[in-house]
């Protein structure tokens, strides 16, 4: 692959790739008509896409530090936007988000606002300045701006805690999808997922991850949008759902008040399989207090601006200007999926609860629903459940239960779409989880190999040796993550939200003030990072072990407390100790203008 040539040809290459993928979907659709089994289609989709990613990973192999750590800093704006979007949208966004909106409505949609609004902070406060700095990793910035191994090491600690919390959830998600699609036990599927992930990143580092992430974005966005548009048209809800579902939203409200939200007794609920939930909240009503909504959104926004695997994507652009624009493109590509999730939740809910639709099950007799094919399938997969609590023989709103994942995974089948769409959705979920896991594992391994090994332990190490260390770490961290994922300690969504809180507790203010406050010094930054992380962790443990919490800060928003402690500690300690030396102040001045050489140059 010739470099310059390759970059110029990107639109053509990915154009052909997209065409090829659509061709593959059509072939599968024809094969289904000719009698291919659902299982074979599922295997076909997952195996084919993973093979393509592995091929891209292999073609992107490299022996240069610059290519391995920052993809040679030549990723064009729009493509970096796609890669960031794939990096960002995890298994949780793809599989769990529409389900969360389906069950919890408005209160949950704070995550939509938080996970997009954070990019404004990324674009205006951090990304362009860190790009100008020319660092390889986020701790690289902290270590150089504040100076000293302790500051660098503290940043590595915060990064590892946050990213590792996040990555176990993603490996868990790849394992879940692989085990369903390939029909193998979860404990083995986790490692198959892990090997697929490592194939993308091990040989090419950031370069391999960049080009596979672009490919993964294309798969996941087609897999998400196609069913939404198809279902909407099939139901006659409107050919462009985003602008045309107001009647459906209003109709759900009507049905909700007609059925009423009947509260189930604890004894009845005890018979419902674990993890399933019923519809208990109004679809479009405001059901959270302003502070509950805003605090969750704020925590997610500040967390976005502190997560290293996102930040390091902007180190790969050719210029500072491109870094800024690239943040805009990233958010645009994320917006395409996020704005569709509430539409999917609306379509899914209406098709299930409206008695006037042929797919509706509320009001039908229990026996009739139990005889439906898709109900039997998803009931067997432990994602759907009905029970006749009041003994009247028909399904009521409060007698129907579903798992969060089912909204994305089962809706195509419920709406009567061909199975090929379900196979496509599985491939999309796999792409979403793999791309995020790759970004995270790489962020951790790079921080340890570059910042701990190269900068602290052995500054004279040769490039070849550094890259061997980086790759060994990649495998070790991947296996550690998979081992913990196989134990299935926490749910996917909960641990993703925690990762944001950890990141903002320890890194938000040390990063932002590093650019925007010249007076910030080493002692202050160390106090901010370690104090913030410790305070946040303490609050989480306290609330989890029965503590009452304060100011309405919950275990999902503990980062608000952690980052407040971080800010105070950083400012107080900085002001009590000596101001940074002249050289450091000059460095900050340099960072603030786009022109001229990067601070660190080639390493």
């Amino acid at each position, binding site marked *: 692959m010739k470099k310059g040539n390759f970059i110029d040809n990107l639109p053509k290459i990915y154009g052909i790739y997209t065409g090829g993928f659509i061709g593959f979907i059509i072939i599968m659709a024809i094969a289904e008509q000719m009698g291919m089994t659902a299982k074979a289609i599922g295997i076909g989709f997952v195996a084919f896409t993973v093979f393509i990613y592995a091929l891209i990973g292999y073609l992107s192999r490299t022996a240069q530090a610059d290519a391995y750590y920052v993809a040679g800093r030549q990723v064009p704006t729009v493509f970096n936007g796609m890669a960031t979007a794939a990096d960002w949208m995890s298994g949780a966004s793809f599989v769990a988000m529409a389900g969360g909106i389906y069950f919890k409505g*408005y209160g949950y*949609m*704070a995550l*939509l*606002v*938080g996970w*997009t*609004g954070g*990019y*404004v*902070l990324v*674009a*205006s*406060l951090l990304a*362009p300045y860190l790009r100008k700095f020319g660092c390889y990793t986020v701790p690289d910035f902290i270590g150089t701006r504040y100076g000293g191994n302790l500051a660098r090491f503290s940043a590595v600690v915060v990064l590892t805690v946050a990213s590792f919390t996040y990555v176990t959830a993603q490996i868990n998600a790849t394992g879940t999808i692989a085990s369903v699609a390939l029909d193998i036990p979860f404990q083995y599927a986790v490692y198959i997922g892990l090997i697929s992930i490592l194939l993308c990143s091990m040989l090419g580092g950031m370069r391999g991850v960049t080009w596979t992430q672009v490919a993964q974005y294309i798969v996941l966005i087609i897999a998400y949008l196609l069913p939404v548009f198809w279902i909407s048209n099939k139901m006659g809800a409107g050919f462009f759902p*985003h*602008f*045309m*579902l*107001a*009647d459906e*939203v*209003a109709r759900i409200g009507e049905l909700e008040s007609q059925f009423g939200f009947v509260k189930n007794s604890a004894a009845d609920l005890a018979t419902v399989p674990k993890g399933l939930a019923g519809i208990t909240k109004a679809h*479009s*009503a*405001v059901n*959270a207090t*302003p502070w509950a*909504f*805003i605090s969750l*959104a*704020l925590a997610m*926004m500040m967390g976005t601006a502190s997560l290293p695997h996102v930040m390091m994507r902007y180190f790969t652009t*050719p*210029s*500072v*200007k491109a870094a*800024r*624009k690239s*943040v*805009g493109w990233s*958010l*645009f590509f994320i*917006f395409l999926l*996020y*704005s569709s999730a*509430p*539409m999917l939740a609306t379509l899914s809910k209406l098709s299930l609860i409206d008695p006037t639709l042929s797919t509706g099950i509320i009001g039908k007799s229990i026996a009739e629903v139990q005889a439906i094919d898709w109900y039997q399938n998803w009931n067997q997969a432990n994602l759907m459940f009905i029970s006749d609590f009041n003994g009247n023989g028909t399904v009521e709103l409060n007698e129907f239960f579903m798992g969060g994942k089912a909204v994305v995974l089962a809706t195509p089948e419920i709406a009567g779409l061909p199975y090929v769409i379900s196979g496509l959705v599985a491939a999309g979920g796999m792409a979403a989880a793999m791309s995020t896991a790759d970004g995270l594992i790489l962020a951790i391994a790079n921080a340890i190999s570059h910042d701990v090994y190269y900068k602290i332990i052995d500054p004279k190490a040769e490039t070849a040796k550094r890259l061997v260390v980086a790759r060994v770490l990649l495998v070790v961290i991947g296996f550690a993550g998979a081992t913990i994922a196989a134990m299935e300690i926490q749910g996917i969504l909960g641990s993703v939200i925690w990762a944001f809180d950890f990141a903002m507790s320890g890194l938000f203010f040390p990063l932002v003030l590093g650019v925007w406050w010249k007076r910030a010094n080493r002692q202050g930054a160390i106090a901010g990072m370690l104090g913030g992380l410790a305070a946040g962790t303490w609050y989480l443990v306290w609330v989890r072990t029965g503590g009452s919490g304060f100011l309405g800060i919950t275990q999902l928003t503990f980062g608000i407390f952690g980052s407040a402690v971080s800010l105070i500690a950083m400012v107080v300690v900085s002001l009590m100790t000596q101001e940074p030396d002249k050289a450091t102040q000059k460095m900050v*001045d340099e960072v*603030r*203008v*786009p*022109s001229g050489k990067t601070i660190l140059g080639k390493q």
Partner: protein
Amino acid sequence: MSNQEKHWEKSRGLLMITLAIWFVFSIGIFLFGAEMNEVTGPFGYPWTYWFTCQGSLGAFVILIFWFANRQEKIDEEFGFSEREDG
């Protein structure tokens, strides 16, 4: 005041405007979520519901591109923009 100080002052001004708009769409409107949801908004959705699904999200996309363009203009004005080959 040096050229660089002027550049930074203007950049800081742009940051403040950007963050103010960001605040309105991410926090400000949700202070009045319950009241606003009574009113029918764009495409017939209730206002607050529409903002959480599309409105705020779209506003952030536009805001970032607007910010990037303004910052480029400021960089050019003071001669701090990058050379194209950079």
